[in-house]
């Protein structure tokens, strides 16, 4: 940690920032001694501050570098599979990209404001895979990502030894991660796509359980003539319940409450729908 001296604290900090070549936000600053005018110039003291580049900034920069490295590795891996471009070409491309993302941070404000990437679906899918691998590793459940493009959306299969950790209580973690992934893709992808995350066969298991619950509940509703309120569920799970019961002539379904505690109500139909 370096010390800097100046007439006032502000001047000392300026000196330090210039010396370390960093922005004020990136610095950890501690005042060692405040400046003092003394009395009639007697006992006058300069200010001293201690300064270093903030650890979080260093960490963020390191993380960025790591992601970039992974990206290079991943692109090379894909390349081996698809055999579309030579490895060196891709390396050059990634290096050029890295350059692009590096440059704006130097001191060019204008470039900085335009995103350093173009909207591109394939690139966004690759970046999203890297993003998910990075996050799952950090969450303590490193996962392999397999991408599957289906009609209902782009499915990212995550394979990990610690499925429970990644799914979370009532699927909260995986659904949060899915929402973040959707945001990520909306931000970078060119077209509008639904992003679905799956851990192991969680979605399939959940669909089976939900189908059974829906059928059972619908029977009870018909038998008791009483509406049943299901537990809060994310939108895509509610949709499944609605769809399953949409052609049931004896019950109707609707959703109540506000996100994230929105739930489905299965109620007896007042007038039985004619087939």
């Amino acid at each position, binding site marked *: 940690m370096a010390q800097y001296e100046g007439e006032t604290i502000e001047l000392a900090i300026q000196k330090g920032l210039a010396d370390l070549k960093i922005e004020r*936000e990136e610095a950890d600053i501690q005042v060692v001694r405040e400046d003092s005018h003394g009395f009639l110039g007697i006992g006058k003291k300069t200010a001293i501050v201690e300064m270093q580049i*903030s*650890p979080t900034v260093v960490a963020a920069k390191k993380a960025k570098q790591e992601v970039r490295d992974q990206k290079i590795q991943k692109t090379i891996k894909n390349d081996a599979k698809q055999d579309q471009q030579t490895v060196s070409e891709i390396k050059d491309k990634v290096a050029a990209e890295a350059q692009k993302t590096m440059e704006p941070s130097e001191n060019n404000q204008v470039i*900085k*404001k335009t*995103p350093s990437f173009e909207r591109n679906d394939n690139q966004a899918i690759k970046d999203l895979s890297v993003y998910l691998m990075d996050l799952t590793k*950090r969450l303590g459940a490193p996962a392999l990502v397999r991408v599957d493009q289906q009609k209902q959306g782009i499915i990212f299969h995550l394979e990990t030894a610690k499925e429970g950790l990644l799914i*979370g209580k009532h699927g909260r973690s995986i*659904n949060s991660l899915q929402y*973040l992934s959707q945001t990520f893709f909306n931000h970078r992808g060119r077209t509008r796509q639904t992003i679905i995350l799956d851990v192991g066969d969680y979605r399939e298991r959940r669909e089976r359980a939900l189908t059974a619950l829906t059928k059972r509940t619908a029977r009870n509703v018909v038998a008791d003539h009483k509406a049943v309120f299901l537990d809060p569920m994310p939108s895509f799970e509610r949709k499944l319940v609605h769809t399953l019961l949409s052609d049931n002539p004896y019950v109707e379904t609707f959703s109540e409450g506000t996100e994230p505690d929105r739930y489905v109500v299965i109620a007896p139909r007042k007038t039985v729908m004619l087939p």
Partner: protein
Amino acid sequence: MKSAEVSELISAIVSPLITMPDELTIDTVEDARFTTYNLSLNRKDIGRVIGKQGRVAQAIRTLIYGIRLDNGKRIRLNIVDK
């Protein structure tokens, strides 16, 4: 998990979602029961991190509130409005 690792995790989650990741800073405040992470970023990116009806912020919170810190404290996440 160590406090610094949580900072890095938050940064890893947030950085790719915003336009100016360079301006993202996270500082940590400890009190008796909580470790609070204060997220400050460019004004234009605040909306991205909060999301429609606060859903992005909520998703981030869901992910990190489950983490057990080494110091046994609970985690809080604030997005600083400058």
